């Protein structure tokens, strides 16, 4: 199923582990070199910046090639012709993608992700132009099949996410009539996905999907929360069904507050980084949901107080963990090399503060416009 040479993927994993051990000064340079020699990696995975560059440029090439095709066929302009062009374009990108992977050994190089997106997009666009997009359920299933196929064949992160969302979308569209059960359905299905992904992630035969499945776990946890969040449920009910009063609203208030706390609890209990981080992000979601309906204090007071609480909280925990306790430490373990080498902090801070003058009381985070056109979504 997977397009890559499995031996190569395994070699890559071994060398990555060895490099990590080397960075932690567990093995000397000579041993790292001998491991590299014994497990050669021919896969082409450039650094993050080149991946972003390849992604953008491949998209540019694709879009202009598509434009060129359309321009040539302009005389016979009908929906069917454009549908045909789309299908042809999708097939073409898929062939190039396969060649890139098989011949040039690209593995998460940015170019492959761009081709995947274009192929999938053109295919779905083509099917819709040819008249197959009228039924949302059918469209959802089509999305699911296409993204699942890409996910299985290329172990791509974004495609995995799309597959998850397509599954949820299809279910919601199918079972729209059961609107009161819908939130629980989403919670149930998301939990099922999370449970399954946790089981599969450590299975030997799925080892090549390991990293991607972790990202998918995070999304499953997020959709689980969205299913029970008071704000989301209420807005959807109002927008879709025109209901103003939410029956049994208190259940959703309980879920809104309890789910992130449960994530945090279990994250610390079983020492799972994904649960913990998603839980932390969702604590912000609790704050915003509550603030949306009950304005406890003016925004600036809430910000100041929240800031003080957070700073003090982090301060005391770091002090407390100065000597590692209960298996926790506040020291970093391995991420040093990568993040520091990219000097990301410097770039981040310069982006963060627009100018010295604070003025507007705009406060828009949480939702996060984290759509940054990253490469294949893998880092």
């Amino acid at each position, binding site marked *: 199923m997977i397009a890559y040479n499995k031996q190569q993927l395994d070699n890559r994993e071994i060398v*990555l*582990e060895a*490099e990590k051990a080397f960075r932690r000064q567990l*093995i*000397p340079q000579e*041993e790292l070199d001998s*491991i590299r020699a014994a497990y050669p990696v021919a896969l082409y*995975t*450039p*650094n993050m*910046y*080149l991946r972003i*560059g390849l992604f*953008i*440029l*491949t998209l*540019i*090439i694709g879009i202009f*090639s598509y*434009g060129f095709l359309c321009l040539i066929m302009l005389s016979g302009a009908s929906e069917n012709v454009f549908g045909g062009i789309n299908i042809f374009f999708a097939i073409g990108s898929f062939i190039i993608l396969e060649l890139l992977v098989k011949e040039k050994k690209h593995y998460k190089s940015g*170019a492959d992700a761009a081709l995947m997106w274009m192929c999938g997009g053109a295919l779905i666009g083509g099917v819709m132009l040819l008249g197959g997009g009228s039924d949302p359920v059918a469209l959802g299933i089509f999305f699911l099949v296409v993204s699942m196929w890409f996910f299985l064949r290329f172990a791509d*992160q974004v495609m995995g996410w799309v597959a998850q969302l397509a599954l949820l979308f299809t279910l919601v569209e199918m079972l729209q009539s059961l609107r009161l059960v819908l939130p629980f359905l989403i919670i149930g299905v998301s939990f099922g996905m999370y449970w399954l992904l946790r089981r599969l992630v450590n299975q030997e035969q799925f080892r090549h999907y390991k990293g991607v499945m*972790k990202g998918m776990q995070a999304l499953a946890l997020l959709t689980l929360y969205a299913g029970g969040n008071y704000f989301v449920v209420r807005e959807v009910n109002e927008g879709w069904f025109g209901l103003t009063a939410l029956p049994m609203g208190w259940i959703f208030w309980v879920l809104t507050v309890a789910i992130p706390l449960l994530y945090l609890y279990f994250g610390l209990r079983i*020492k799972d980084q994904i649960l913990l*981080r998603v839980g932390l*992000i969702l604590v912000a979601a609790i704050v915003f949901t509550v603030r949306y309906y009950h304005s406890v204090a003016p925004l*600036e*007071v*809430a910000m100041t107080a929240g*800031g003080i609480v*957070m*700073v003090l*909280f982090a301060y005391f925990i*770091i002090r407390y*963990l100065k000597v*590692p306790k209960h*298996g926790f*430490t*506040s020291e*970093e373990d391995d*991420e040093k090399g990568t993040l520091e080498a990219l000097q*990301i902090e*410097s*770039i*981040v*801070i*310069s*982006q963060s*503060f*627009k*100018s*010295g003058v*604070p003025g507007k009381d*705009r406060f828009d*985070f*949480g939702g996060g416009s984290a759509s*940054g056109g*990253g490469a294949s979504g*893998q*880092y």
Partner: protein
Amino acid sequence: MGAPDILPILFYMNLMLYFPQMNIRMFGKLEQDGLISPGSMSNIRAAADKKLFSLHWELKTILYLGVLLLSGGLGVLVYKNIDTIGHQVVLLAIALACAGCFYYCYRQKLPFSWGKVAAPNPFFDYVLLLGCLLFITFITYLQAAYGVFKFHYGTATFIPLVVLFFSAYYFDHLGVLSLAITNLAAWLGVNVSPLTFLEGTMYISMRLIMTGLLLGGALLLLDYMTHYLRKKPHFGFTYRNFGMHLMLLACVTAMFKSTDSYGMESDASYLIWFVIQIGISIYIYREALKHQSFYFMLMMGLYGYVGLSYVIVRLLLLTESEGGIYAGILYFIASAIGLIIFLINANKKIKHDSLQ
């Protein structure tokens, strides 16, 4: 406040980076094959047995967000209460907190050196950042409420500027240095944050473009001097980063500006800007090779691509024929392929040892 936009990305990247345990079984096999020595194997076993769970990133993020919220909240608080009695209390609180932050940093800091100085403890960087942000709020507020600096509005931004640069060097803090550069640009009238540019809220005049170009040039010179004089050479990246973006952005913006209004189709000043851009790009290219940084190679390449494409499209427009459209499309396909080949080859020139 753009930081919250960035943080989810960091979180996500970090999520992807994390591999919880060392793969003991795999290393066992490597030992059997004689690729690693029994000594290393026992090292690895010992490391895996400790199996400490790191909360480093989570705590740092909370701390960072807390600092942002606190300084932002106080900033708004002081403006909201500008006509009430309470504002003096808030002002006093800000002044005290700011002084406290600087005092803490002064007491805790390691001895000054022109090289890289490590932070003495995990809080140091954040306390300094908070102190600097509060100081900016304090000065801006003084000006707004009391007009302390009368008509010299520039002074109100100049004082924080000096303090920021001094703090960046004295306490060795890259984030504060970025803040200082941003403020320097604001003082000169250029808002350098890429976000403002993307939002399109920046009014672009020729004066602004020239300022950007000169400031960018000055920053690149500063980068050169930090290495030449060996004064805080690790600050070079930040100077170079800002300098490159400012200069190249100024060139590209100036080119686009030459078709701003009607009747300027024959304005050929864009060619001059393109030549300037080529010159800067060559310098950046050499710097990128010197510092083995692919980031600069990519940025230089992308700006160059935009500039070249603009020139080509303008020239094709002169032909006023249908063939020009075809030629344009073919140009974009060919040039993108060309840029890919250039970037891949440039990447090979910059050695990367590890797979990541």
